[in-house]
């Protein structure tokens, strides 16, 4: 909300800051264009490519990072240890522009503004023949606003996965096994139906997305620390168990940026340990490969008080997630076809009554997506996502029918100008939002008002 009396100086400052932000964006776009057009190779390459000496498309299907090829999956499962240890530094920048169909809404900000959205630094690669991983830290330039509506940035831990892994292989058996320390349930997964790695890979911030999701779909990302063990037998059977706890004390580097007491970035506190499990069967034939699998998460989340501190003596909200997923890939140059399917079912038992006040609750989500990439350069994706759940007065107070039920179609077109630079155009079309296609909030907002178009530039160095 704008202050009632804004001084002329404030206006001038915010205008020049806006000018500076636009200048930063233009500098970034110009730099990117120079990179795209330059004849000589980019001097700095993402560290996995340097380590292996291989092109990005060796591991990333059709070049569409973060999608993985069978070779990329093995690289990750063997602990990121293929190749020679090299300088493990890499960086990533996302710049974007979003326009929402009806932006006259407090939840829509930075509409029609080109911005540098995030800058990330990675420490990623091989430590030894058996140890490797990646650690990402991200600075978000437009995180929160102060009372004068100036944007404040935020730096925090992003995905982290450190592994010890090995592979024993002979003519009769191929066993890859390992242990992982990570900070996001499913970040350790190697299929792009896993919540941490599924489409859409980039989404507009500061506008509407799906209004609810199951806990495993990101709520614990960079909040928890997990140690897990996994095995992949004969490139057919995968099994994993990982146990998570709140990332605090010695493990707080995994939740850096999220702190108990911080109202904008509180630390989610688990009651005890949360168990994550995953099983999958994979098969490859000719140019195709497929996976069918299941996974689950059982976690108790403690409530936070008015000071964003965890409360440990009034019970917790118990989430039980069970999901089934599948992936198919057809990889034969110049064509890449990938498809993912995921269905999640959650039961929520809130002993505190603070998150869900109407008793035991359920939530279901669905993702169906297909992509096609031509010559590892020109690609398109189409996905359909839904969320539906039992009614609850507290959880879905913003819905006039008190349910989360929403559906969004996402279509995307992208161009890999270089293997490490992707330009994309994404449309998110909501056919239903919080239980209705029209007037879902009782104040006249329609699902289609949340439709948005999103242009992004995603570059890795």
């Amino acid at each position, binding site marked *: 909300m704008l202050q009632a009396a804004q001084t002329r100086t404030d206006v001038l400052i915010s205008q020049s800051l806006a000018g500076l932000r636009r200048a930063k964006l233009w500098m970034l776009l110009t730099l990117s264009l120079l990179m795209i057009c330059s004849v000589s190779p980019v001097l700095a390459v993402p560290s996995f490519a340097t380590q*292996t*000496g*291989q*092109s990005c*498309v*060796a591991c990333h299907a059709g070049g569409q990072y973060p999608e993985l090829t*069978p*070779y990329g999956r*093995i690289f990750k499962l*063997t602990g990121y*240890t*293929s*190749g*020679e*240890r090299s300088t493990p530094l890499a960086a990533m920048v996302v710049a974007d522009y979003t326009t929402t169909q009806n932006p006259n809404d407090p939840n829509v900000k930075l509409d029609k503004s080109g911005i540098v959205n995030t800058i990330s630094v990675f420490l990623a690669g091989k430590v030894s*023949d058996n140890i490797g991983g990646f650690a990402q830290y991200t600075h978000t330039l437009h995180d929160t606003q102060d009372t004068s509506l100036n944007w404040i940035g935020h730096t925090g831990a992003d995905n982290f996965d450190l592994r*010890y892994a*090995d*592979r*024993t*292989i*002979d*003519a009769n058996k*191929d*066993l890859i*096994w*390992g*242990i992982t320390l990570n900070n996001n349930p499913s970040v350790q997964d190697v299929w792009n139906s896993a919540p941490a790695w599924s489409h859409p890979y980039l989404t507009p911030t500061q506008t509407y997305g799906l209004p609810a999701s199951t806990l495993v779909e990101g709520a614990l990302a960079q909040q928890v*620390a*997990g*140690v*897990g*063990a996994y*095995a992949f037998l004969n490139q057919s059977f995968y099994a994993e*168990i*990982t*146990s*998570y*706890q709140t990332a605090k004390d010695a493990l707080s580097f995994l939740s850096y940026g999220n702190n108990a007491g911080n109202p904008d970035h509180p630390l989610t506190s688990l009651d*005890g*340990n949360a*168990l994550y499990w995953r099983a999958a069967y994979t098969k*490859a*034939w*000719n*140019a195709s490969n497929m996976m069918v699998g299941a996974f689950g998460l059982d976690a108790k989340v403690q409530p936070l008080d008015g000071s964003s501190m965890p409360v440990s003596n009034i019970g917790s909200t118990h989430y039980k997630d069970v999901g089934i997923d599948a992936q198919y890939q057809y*990889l*034969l*140059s110049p064509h890449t076809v990938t498809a993912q399917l995921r269905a999640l079912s959650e039961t929520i038992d809130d002993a505190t009554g603070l998150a869900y006040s109407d008793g035991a609750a359920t939530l279901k989500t669905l993702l169906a997506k297909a992509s096609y990439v031509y010559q590892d350069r020109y690609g398109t994706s189409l996905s359909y996502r839904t969320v539906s759940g039992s009614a609850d007065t507290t959880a879905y107070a913003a819905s006039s029918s008190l349910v989360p039920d929403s559906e969004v179609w996402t279509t995307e077109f992208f161009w890999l100008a270089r293997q490490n630079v992707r330009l994309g155009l994404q449309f998110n079309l909501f056919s239903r939002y919080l239980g209705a296609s029209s007037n879902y909030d009782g104040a006249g907002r329609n699902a289609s008002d949340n439709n948005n178009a999103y242009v992004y530039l995603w570059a890795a160095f």
Partner: protein
Amino acid sequence: MKAWTNIWTPGLLAFALAALTGCANPPSSRNVNDPQASGKSLAVQVCSTCHGMTGESISPMFPKLAGQQREYLLAQLADFKGHERSDSRGVQYMWGFTHLSAKQVDELADYFSGQTPMQAVAAGDADLARGKALFEGGVPDKGVVQCTACHGPNGEGNGSFPRLAGQHPAYVLEQIKVFQLTDLRPRGAPMKQVTHALADSDAQAIAQYVGTIGFRP
């Protein structure tokens, strides 16, 4: 808190697994730039991911290496290492292997050339008669020499001329086009001459045919 959900229990399970499998002491280096790593270790830990444990690759994106001519394998590894072979797939996957020692290259060539030769597939509905006729007779009036002249009467190869029998048809066709339309495989200069006047449909027929040579039901 149940003890079995303790964060460290999976770690202990993993170490138990390590203790059980560690006794076998198989080759396990994945460092392609370590001259101490044996060629066999690199073959099973790295190359097998795309080319198969015994050189029988599943995907036609990656050629079968099982029973390939040793001299041909030595030449291709040298050309990838020296960045002289620059077809797209080769660049994307194989240009990283720049530090293989002569001994490792020898051992890799030994490993794959010593495997049971690549298995042919059943004919399907391809027109094999035409492919066979072209493979064995060429197209004399267009200057297309018969393939058997260099690749052997049964496509088994000969020294620096690769085995074709049992190779993925899609891979063979892709390489024919590389030879015909580009200069990305300079060592294959003779192939440029041979394929110069080869029609697309003929190239497809040959590629389909070689994939079935030697098939035993």
